[in-house]
C-alpha cells in the first residue's frame, strides 16, 4: 500500500462518521427546510418569519449581552490575575469548565427560582419579600447569568493565555511611566491581546447562540424563547421537521458568519 | 566512504531547493557546506540522510546507489541542530538506542557507550549517563548528540549546524574538538553551517552554496583568497561593495575614475575586504599597484585590536580597519590592486578568473 493510500485508509473511518452524522444531516437539514407537505416551498420560512422573528432577535440579544458581559468581566479579571495574581481566584474560575451544561441549568434554576435558595437567603437578611419575590430564573436574566457563569471559565482561560503572552517589558514600560493597574489593562494588555479576544468572542457567541440545555432548563414558559428550544419543541411537540429545520437554517446562517471568521484565523496559521 | 551526488534535484512546490547539484565528498575528510539560510544546504544534508525523497539525480555512497533507500538503511548518522536528544530517555539510553536496534548484547552496549562518551570527553561519565538530556548544559548535550551518532560507527557522519545553539566561547572550543575527533575516527563527515569562519576553520573542503546550486568548492584557502564571484567574495569576510561602471581603460565610481584594463564592461561591482584597505588623510598622489578612492571619514569605532573607520565614498559607506586612528574629515582609501575585485554586476558567474582580471587593473 502506498503511503498516500495508507493515510487515506486511516482517515476514512473517522471521516465517514463525521460526514455521515454531521455533514449529511446538515445537508438534509437544508433540504427539509424547503419541504412542506411533501413539496418544495418557502412556507416553512414564512412560518418562521411569522412566529419566530421575535425569538431570533431575543436569541441574538441574549447571546450578545452574555458575550459582552463575559468578555468584559474576563478582560478585567484576567488583567488583575496577570498583573497582581491570585492563585485561588484563578483556580476558582476554572471550576465551571468542568461543570456540564445540564448541571449549570439545574443548579441555576434551584438557585435563582423565585423561591430558590438565593431569594430564601436574601429574605433571611430582610432584603426581599418572599410574598412577592423577584424572579431571575425563567427570564432572560436567568439565561444570561447561566451562560455567563458557564462561559466565564473559558473566557478567563483564553484571555489570560493571551495576556500571559504579552511580554513583561511592555508592562514594565507602562508602569515605569506611572500607569495604574487599570491603565495597564486598558492601554497595553487589552489592545495587544485583541486578536485572541476576537477569536474567543466569535467562538463563544456561536456556542451561546446554539445553547440548548441551559435555556431548556432555566428559560421561562413564555415567549420569546431561545432558538434551540423552539427547534426542540417544533420537533417533539408538533412533529414539524420542516419548520424546525428552517429555524435550524437561521441559526446556521448566524453561525456561518462567525465560522468564516474563525476559520480564517485558524487557517492563516500554517497547518 | 566516498560520497557523491549527481544532478540532485529537490523541489518544494514551485521552489527549487536543489537545482541539479553534482559534487563529491572525499572519503575520510571533513567537508563543510556553507551558505546563507535558504540556500539548500540543509536540504542537501537531509537528502543524504534520506529524510526527504529527491525529485531527480543520484546519491552514491562508495559504489552503492542509496538514492531509494529509507533513512534507517543508509548507515548515516546525524547530529541535529537542536541535538534531537530524546527528552524521555537518559543519556545512556539515548546513546545506546542505535546499538540496541542492532541487537548488540547488553554488556557490549554498556562498554561501547562508555567508550564513546569517553571519546567525546564528556567527563564524569558515570554521573552523566543516568541523567536526562534536559539536565545537561548545551555543550554537554552537543557531546551526547555526537556520541549517539558516533557509537553506531556510521558510514557517513552528518552534522547540521551542530554548534549554532552554543555561546561563542563553547563554540570556539568545540570547533577544535570536533575537528580533532573527526581526524581521529576518520569517518567521512559532512558539516552544514552558515558561519563562514566556522566552515573555514573546521573543514578540509568547503562547498559554498547559493540558491540551490554550488557556487564554489575547494580548500578553505581557495575559497577565502580566491572567491570566484561577487557572491563568494561578499559571503566570506567583512566586505565592502561599491557600484561602478567599467569601460575600456577606465572604471568610474561616481565621479571618480580609476584606471582599468580588465574585461568587464558596463555596470560592475567593486569588492574589497575591510582588512585589506587602509585609510590615509586626503592624499592625491597616485601609487602604482594601489587603487585610491576619495571619501569622507564619518565615524570611528575602537575595536580593541584596532580601529574601524566608516568612510563615505560617492554616497556609499565602506569600512576600513586599521591599527592607528584617523581623524574625521576628507580621506583617501587605499586598496592594493590585487585585493580589489571587480565583477560584472548581475552576473553571478565570474567573467574570467577574477584574480587575474584585478591584477591587470
Amino acid at each position, binding site marked *: 500500500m502506498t503511503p498516500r493510500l495508507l493515510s487515506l485508509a486511516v482517515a476514512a473511518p473517522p471521516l465517514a462518521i463525521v460526514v455521515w452524522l454531521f455533514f449529511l444531516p446538515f445537508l438534509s437539514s437544508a433540504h427539509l427546510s424547503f419541504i412542506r407537505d411533501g413539496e418544495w416551498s418557502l412556507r416553512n420560512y414564512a412560518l418562521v418569519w411569522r412566529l419566530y422573528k421575535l425569538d431570533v432577535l431575543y436569541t441574538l440579544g441574549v447571546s450578545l449581552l452574555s458575550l459582552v458581559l463575559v468578555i468584559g468581566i474576563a478582560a478585567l479579571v484576567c488583567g488583575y490575575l496577570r498583573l497582581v495574581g491570585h492563585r485561588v481566584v484563578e483556580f476558582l474560575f476554572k471550576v465551571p469548565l468542568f461543570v456540564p451544561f445540564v448541571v449549570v441549568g439545574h443548579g441555576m434554576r434551584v438557585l435563582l*427560582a*423565585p423561591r430558590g435558595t438565593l431569594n430564601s437567603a436574601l429574605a433571611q437578611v430582610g432584603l426581599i419579600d418572599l410574598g412577592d419575590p423577584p424572579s431571575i430564573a425563567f427570564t432572560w436574566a436567568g439565561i444570561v447569568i447561566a451562560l455567563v457563569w458557564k462561559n466565564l471559565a473559558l473566557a478567563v482561560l483564553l484571555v489570560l493565555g493571551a495576556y500571559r503572552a504579552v511580554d513583561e517589558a511592555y508592562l514594565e514600560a507602562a508602569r515605569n511611566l506611572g500607569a495604574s493597574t487599570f491603565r495597564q489593562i486598558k492601554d497595553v494588555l487589552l489592545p495587544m491581546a485583541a486578536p485572541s479576544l476576537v477569536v474567543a468572542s466569535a467562538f463563544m457567541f456561536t456556542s451561546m447562540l446554539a445553547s440548548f440545555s441551559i435555556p431548556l432548563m432555566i428559560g421561562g*414558559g413564555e415567549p420569546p424563547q431561545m432558538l434551540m428550544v423552539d427547534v426542540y*419543541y417544533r420537533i*417533539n411537540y408538533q412533529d414539524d421537521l420542516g419548520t424546525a429545520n428552517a429555524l435550524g437554517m437561521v441559526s446556521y446562517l448566524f453561525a456561518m458568519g462567525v465560522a468564516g471568521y474563525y476559520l480564517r484565523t485558524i487557517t492563516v496559521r500554517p497547518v | 566512504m566516498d560520497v557523491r551526488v549527481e544532478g540532485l534535484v529537490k523541489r518544494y512546490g514551485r521552489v527549487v531547493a536543489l537545482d541539479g547539484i553534482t559534487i563529491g565528498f572525499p572519503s575520510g575528510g571533513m567537508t563543510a557546506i556553507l551558505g546563507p539560510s535558504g540556500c539548500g544546504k540543509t536540504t542537501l544534508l537531509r537528502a543524504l540522510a534520506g529524510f526527504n525523497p529527491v525529485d531527480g539525480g543520484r546519491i552514491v555512497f562508495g559504489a552503492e546507489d542509496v538514492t531509494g533507500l529509507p533513512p534507517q538503511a543508509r548507515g548515516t548518522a546525524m547530529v541535529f541542530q537542536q541535538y534531537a536528544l530524546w527528552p524521555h*530517555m537518559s543519556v545512556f539510553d539515548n546513546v545506546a538506542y542505535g546499538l540496541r536496534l542492532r541487537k548488540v548484547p547488553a554488556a557490549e552496549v554498556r562498554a561501547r557507550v562508555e567508550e564513546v562518551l569517553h571519546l567525546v570527553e564528556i567527563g564524569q561519565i558515570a554521573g552523566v549517563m543516568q541523567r536526562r538530556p534536559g539536565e545537561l548544559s548545551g555543550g554537554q548535550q552537543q557531546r551526547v548528540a555526537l556520541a549517539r551518532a558516533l557509537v553506531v560507527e556510521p558510514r557517513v557522519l552528518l552534522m547540521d549546524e551542530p554548534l549554532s545553539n552554543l555561546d561563542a566561547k563553547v563554540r570556539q572550543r568545540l570547533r577544535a574538538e570536533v575537528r580533532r575527533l573527526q581526524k581521529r575516527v576518520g569517518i567521512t563527515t559532512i558539516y552544514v553551517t552558515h558561519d563562514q569562519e566556522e566552515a573555514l576553520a573546521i573543514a578540509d573542503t568547503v562547498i559554498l552554496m547559493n540558491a540551490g546550486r554550488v557556487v564554489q568548492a575547494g580548500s578553505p584557502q581557495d575559497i577565502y583568497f580566491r572567491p570566484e564571484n561577487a557572491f563568494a567574495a561578499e559571503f566570506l569576510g567583512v566586505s565592502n561593495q561599491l557600484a561602478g561602471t567599467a569601460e575600456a581603460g577606465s572604471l568610474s565610481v561616481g565621479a571618480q575614475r580609476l584606471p582599468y584594463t580588465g574585461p568587464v564592461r558596463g555596470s560592475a561591482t567593486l569588492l574589497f575586504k575591510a582588512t585589506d584597505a587602509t585609510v590615509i588623510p586626503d592624499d592625491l598622489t597616485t601609487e602604482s599597484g594601489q587603487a585610491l578612492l576619495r571619501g569622507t571619514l564619518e565615524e570611528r569605532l575602537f575595536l580593541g585590536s584596532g580601529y574601524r573607520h566608516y568612510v563615505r565614498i560617492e554616497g556609499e559607506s565602506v569600512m576600513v580597519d586599521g591599527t592607528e586612528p584617523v581623524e574625521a574629515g576628507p580621506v583617501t582609501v587605499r586598496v592594493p590592486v590585487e585585493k580589489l575585485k571587480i565583477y560584472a554586476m548581475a552576473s553571478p558567474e565570474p567573467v574570467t578568473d577574477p584574480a587575474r582580471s584585478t591584477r591587470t587593473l
Partner: protein
Amino acid sequence: MMRKSTTFTTTVATLLVTLALAWPGLSAAQTTLNVVTAGDTNMHDLQRTVFAPEFEKRNPGVKVNAVGSGPGEAGSRVIVNKVKSQKDAGVAKWDVDVAVVHQIVMPELIQQKLVARYAPEIGTWKLMTAPDGRNALGFDVEGYVMPMFHSQVVLAYNPEMVKAPPSTFEELVAWIKSNPKKFGYNGVKGGMSGVAFTTGWLYWKTGQYEKFARGPYDKSIEAAWPAAIKELKSLPVTLTTGNNDTLDRINRGEIAMGPVWVDMLIDLKNQGRMDPKIRMKLIAPGFPGQPMYLVVPQNAANGSLARKYVEFITSPEIQARVIVERNGWYPGIDGQHVLTHVSDKAKALLFQDVPPDALTRHGLSFPLSPYFKDLMTAYEEN
C-alpha cells in the same frame, strides 16, 4: 525508558478486553419484555418499581425492561418514531413490546399499522366500558387500546392563598384579575395540563364543546378562537414551563392556583413531595381529561407476553390495589369491578376534592385531532 507508552498501551488493551466481555452482557437477548412509557418519571417508575417486579414474580424467566421515553407527548412521539423506523426498515421483530402512550398519537399509530388490534383477545376487554377506550380525539381506536387509568385536569390551589376557590370560569377570571400573576399555567407547549386549560377556556368561550369533541370537523367554527385566545393571553397570569413546573410553583407558593393533572398531584402527595394542604377543584363548564393507553406494537417481539402484561395491569385486582389504592388515580376499566376491592379510606380520598358527579358533569374530552392541531398554531399566532 518506554514505561509511559507501555502503561498507556496496557490501559487501552485492558479496556478493550473489558468491553469485549461486557458488550454481550449489555445487549443480551433473554426473554425480556420491553415496556416503554411516555410521560413524566412517575409514569415509568410505576412500571419499573411496581408492575415489573410483580409480573416477573408471577412469570418466572421473564424480565421486564421498563424504560421512559420522556415527558409529555414528546415521549409518545419518540415511541411512534421508534416503531415506525423498525417497520420502515422491514424488521421482523420490533423491540417495543408494550407502550404507554397519549391519545394524540393514536391516529398515526393505527393508520400506519404500527399497533395491533389486540384488546378483544385479552380477558379484561369486557371490563372496559369507558367511551374514550373506544374513541380518542374523535378517532376510532376500538380494540387497539386498553386505558391504564383515566386522568383529569383540575385546578389545584393553595387554600391559604385562595380562601374561596372559584367554581366557574367566570369566577376564575375575576380571581385572576384581582390576584395578578398568582394564577399559572403552562401555555400549550410545555405539556397537556396547559393544553387542557386552554381547551376548557375555548369550550367555555365558544360554548361549542359538543361540536369540537364529537365532530364532524368544521374549520369555520374556529373563527371565534382568535378573540378568545387574545382575551386569555391578556390576563395577568404566570406562564410555567410544564405540567411539573405548575405543580412545583404551587407547591413553593410562587403561584396560588393552576391547572394540573389529578394523577400527578396525588402522586406527589403520596411521595411526600407535595405540600399536603394543596387542594383541587373541577370548575364549570369543565376541563378535558384523558386516559393513558396501553398499546401493543404490530410486530412486538413478545406479542403474547405483551398481551399478558396488559391483561395483568388492567385486571381488577391490580387496578384496585395499585391504580386506586396505592396511587389514588381513576381506574382504566369500569369502576364497578374495581371499587369493590378498594378500601373505604382510599375511596374517600379518591373523591375527596372531586366528587363522582362533578367528574361526570365537568370531566370533558379533548377536541378532535384536527381541531387539536389547529389550536396549537392558533395559540402561538394570537
